[in-house]
């Protein structure tokens, strides 16, 4: 990373960028793991300055307002799949280049709709550097384009893709095959904070309508 970019990261953390510079920097941040690393390093360097800030009790009613504004509760299946989502690692540069060549924007777990086109991308990842699947969601059409990069299907089994909306049970989106697939989002799907997961199911998919096998890949769409 050149000094210029790193100093810009420092100014961002310090807080001295003006409003437009901040917005521009945050767009760059969403697309660059290196820039995010630089920001984290600056947060770490400067954090001790807050040690002496005195604690002040907030008004008692504030927590109630906050809780009232939180999204609805989540079920146990969501809990299990979110654990898998936490293992989502950064997308390798090679994978980013591949995705860019495919016309996708691959972003490490923070996603931002590019301009006004209303597409979101999740890189579904088992925990290694290379994403196993690239999922592109087009809000306008409600279509999901799934392209396996390195997905492996155990013999006699099928890989099934699930959409887990905020606070909802997983909904099957179909099986992940070796070629690229175009699958439809469940009706009324909300991609904000949705998780996509892939499980190993019996050949032909889950017989029950819900995931029965282990989660092997998961990824999340989070709007900054």
């Amino acid at each position: 990373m050149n000094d210029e970019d790193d100093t810009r990261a420092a100014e961002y953390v310090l807080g001295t960028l003006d409003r437009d510079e901040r917005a521009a920097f945050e767009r760059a941040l969403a697309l660059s793991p290196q820039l995010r690393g630089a920001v984290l390093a600056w947060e770490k360097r400067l954090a001790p300055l807050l040690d002496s800030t005195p604690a002040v009790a907030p008004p008692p009613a504030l927590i109630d307002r906050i809780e009232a504004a939180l999204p609805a509760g989540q079920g146990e299946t969501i809990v299990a799949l979110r654990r898998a989502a936490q293992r989502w690692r950064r997308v390798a540069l090679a994978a980013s280049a591949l995705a860019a060549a495919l016309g996708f924007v691959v972003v490490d777990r923070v996603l931002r709709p590019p301009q006004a086109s209303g597409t979101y991308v999740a890189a579904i990842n088992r925990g290694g550097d290379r994403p196993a699947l690239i999922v592109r969601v087009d809000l306008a059409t409600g279509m999901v384009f799934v392209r396996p990069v390195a997905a492996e299907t155990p013999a006699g089994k099928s890989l099934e893709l699930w959409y887990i909306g905020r606070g909802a049970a997983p909904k099957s989106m179909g099986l992940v095959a070796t070629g690229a697939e175009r699958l439809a989002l469940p009706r009324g799907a909300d991609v904000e904070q949705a998780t996509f997961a892939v499980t190993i199911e019996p050949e032909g998919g889950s017989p029950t309508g819900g995931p029965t096998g282990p989660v092997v890949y998961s990824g999340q769409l989070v709007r900054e």
Partner: protein
Amino acid sequence: MLDRPEAARLIAAVAQGDRAAFRRLYALTAPKLFGVALRMAPDRAAAEDVLQDAFLRIWTKAVTYSPEAGEPVAWMAAIVRHRAIDLLRSRAARGREEGDEALERIAAADRVDGQVADAAILRRCLGELDEIARSCVVAAYCEGRSREELAARYGAPVNTIKTRLRRSLAALRACVDQNG
């Protein structure tokens, strides 16, 4: 000051949608974080908005937290600071004067083991900057002062402040990384 292993454990629970953990995390950390917000926001009502926004983001972003993102409470404080700065930069704001006592306060502050070394290094490195540069860094970080406000305070052109800040930050980086 704050029990870090508990905060990390609570954030992980929040990431799984555990509301009781969220309330406990709030109880543990909100006073400190409200203090951070108060120091930066233009008034108390704005500070409450900042704290509220920050905790909603903490709820959502808990799933993205990992130790690489920093100490749990520092991670939360960064969210608060950035909300405050967003607010400040989108509307003009005035604030209080900040002196050079920052160095002494870093030395005197209550902190958990492990953070002591980082604070000592920052203190030494800040000490190597000239007085005005140091004040600018502290005022910007702790109070959210803009370049324009710093320029007005020190009677310097905005571009001069910008250049000095960038040089000071580069010097801080070199010093902190060399000693860290």
